[in-house]
């Protein structure tokens, strides 16, 4: 067969269609394993709920933290948690990549006419994340309903932009780590502690030491996808820079990481056998 020619738009439509197929595949797999699915879904909800209970207890004792009110704290938490959960649900590929390399699945992706990163992403959904994302959104709406945020259409769009940016920043950071760890340094487990760092950004950054603040803003900029967008929505005058910087950093990081991925793929040496 000859490769069909597609322009940029057709390619985008093609990839979206493929992603839809992956979702369908994932959904059908979930139905095959109904019990596991319920366990995962409920597990995600429980994990989030227990964190929330813990948080409520803590926050109600400290009605203000670093100048943020209780509902503001919950709002920051909700946005960050939703971003994390959406990333886990749809862009979980950094965590599954190791398995794809070991099992030789990456080889199979490489003989097909679609980028292997896209295929690996398409095969890496996590239902667990859907449960968490739902709870995250409930938290977010609960907090927002108690705050005088003067919602406008633009602000609504910005929430979506912030969540997508958050997903992409996490993907970029974790993927960069996985690629360098696999192919440059060969330490595989470092991704987990880096992933956990994200949890810090569910709280106001001011409560941390300057080192952690700097780390999460400049080095591993998870905060740009969670705390800062939330702060921008809550205190627009103080954090006005975050409006454009957040999506811009997300795009930039993604381009950098994608090139690192391509570089890693050239050094990829497959698995024996």
């Amino acid at each position, binding site marked *: 067969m000859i490769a069909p020619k597609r322009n940029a738009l057709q390619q985008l439509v093609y990839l979206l269609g493929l992603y839809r197929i992956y979702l369908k595949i994932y959904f059908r*797999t979930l139905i095959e394993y109904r019990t596991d699915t319920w366990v995962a879904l409920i597990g995600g909800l429980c994990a989030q709920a227990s964190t929330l209970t813990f948080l409520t207890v803590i926050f109600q004792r400290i009605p203000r933290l670093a100048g943020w009110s209780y509902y503001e704290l919950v709002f920051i938490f909700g946005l960050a948690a939703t971003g994390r959960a959406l990333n886990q649900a749809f862009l979980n590929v950094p965590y599954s990549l190791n398995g794809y390399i070991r099992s030789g699945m990456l080889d199979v992706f490489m003989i097909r006419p679609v980028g292997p990163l896209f295929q690996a992403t398409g095969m890496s959904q996590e239902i667990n994340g859907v449960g968490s994302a739902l709870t995250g959104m409930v938290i977010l709406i609960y907090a927002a309903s108690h705050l005088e945020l003067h919602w406008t259409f633009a602000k609504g769009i910005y929430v979506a932009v912030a969540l997508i940016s958050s997903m992409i920043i996490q993907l970029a950071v974790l993927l960069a780590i996985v690629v360098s760890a696999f192919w440059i340094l060969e330490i595989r487990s470092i991704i987990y502690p880096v992933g956990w760092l994200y949890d810090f950004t569910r709280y106001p950054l001011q409560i941390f030491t300057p080192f952690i603040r700097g780390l999460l803003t400049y080095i591993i900029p998870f905060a740009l996808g969670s705390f800062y967008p939330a702060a921008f929505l809550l205190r627009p005058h103080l954090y006005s820079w975050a409006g454009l910087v957040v999506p811009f950093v997300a795009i930039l990081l993604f381009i950098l990481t994608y090139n690192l991925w391509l570089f890693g793929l050239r050094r990829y040496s497959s698995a024996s056998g």
Partner: protein
Amino acid sequence: MPIIEVDHVNKVFKTSVRREGRFGTFISLFSPVTRQVTAVEDISFTIEKGESVAYLGPNGAGKSTTIKMLTGILEPSGGNILVGGGKPHRNRIHNSYQIGVVFGQRSQLLFDLPVRDSYEMLRYMYGIPHAHYRKNLSEFAAVLEVEQLLDRPVRTLSLGQRMRCEILAALLHEPDILFLDEPTIGLDVIAKERIRSFIEQINREKQVTILLTTHDLDDIERLCSRLMIIDKGNLIYDGSLGYIREHFATERRIRMVMPDPAAATVTAARFEGNADFRVSVQEQMIEITYDHRQIDTSELLRTLLSTCNPRDLAMQDENIEALIRRIYQDGINAVHQQPPRTAGGIR
């Protein structure tokens, strides 16, 4: 123009070795220790469209590594590869349309879902027109006898059934070349035969170029007019199986059963002095091994029969499997002292 050109290709793997000790991993971060493995060394060959070639070699010889370079998974460390005129690693997407790949030890199919779902996914991925897809699926499914399997989850299939479904998956987009890396490994005789006859058929009827790796000689005998043998990364033979049989299988064996083998031993002793002449006696059986190029078989038989009176007599060619094992073990020169002048023989 050949459809596959491999020109002085090398592949060196660098693997980092972790240091021992408590801080081993940490130290390795800053001063990695690497070990180099040359998996493929200075290999050259070309394959014409429509050929069917077997790639034979013991475990670890470099067969899979070669296939991975030809399919664009790995980049050669040196040398040049052209598949359909392009570099596979540089343009994987273009390459993916002209090749189909079957890995004996990896699966293309979605493990938990019915076989058909994997095919549907591939149909969309490659953008196969619906009419072609339907035609290819029904045609191949009929020949491979997998129609009954299409709606069964992949995980419920036997290895042989799965393998046939894998082959179908690799052919849906009508590739020009089919690579198969140990497609018959672990299969029983019947399953092997089904796969062989299908491969033979698509090669003959659709002119699909075949390159298959194996260590099963029956695969070759059945499928491939051409045989390449690789050992320790080096291509040590490129020619026909017939040529090996004719020129390398020089050993003949005569077995006679008689009440008094000792007498025959005395007669046989006349031929001793030839390098490859051996006689062994086991109770009532005498076994004589010789090189048929050095000793005339009819003369040997006449001499033996003039003095002995065997109850039974059998002659055997050298077992080709054992021969190839000997080629691996001792190198091509051990089985063939004077390299043939024929072109396309030994490298």
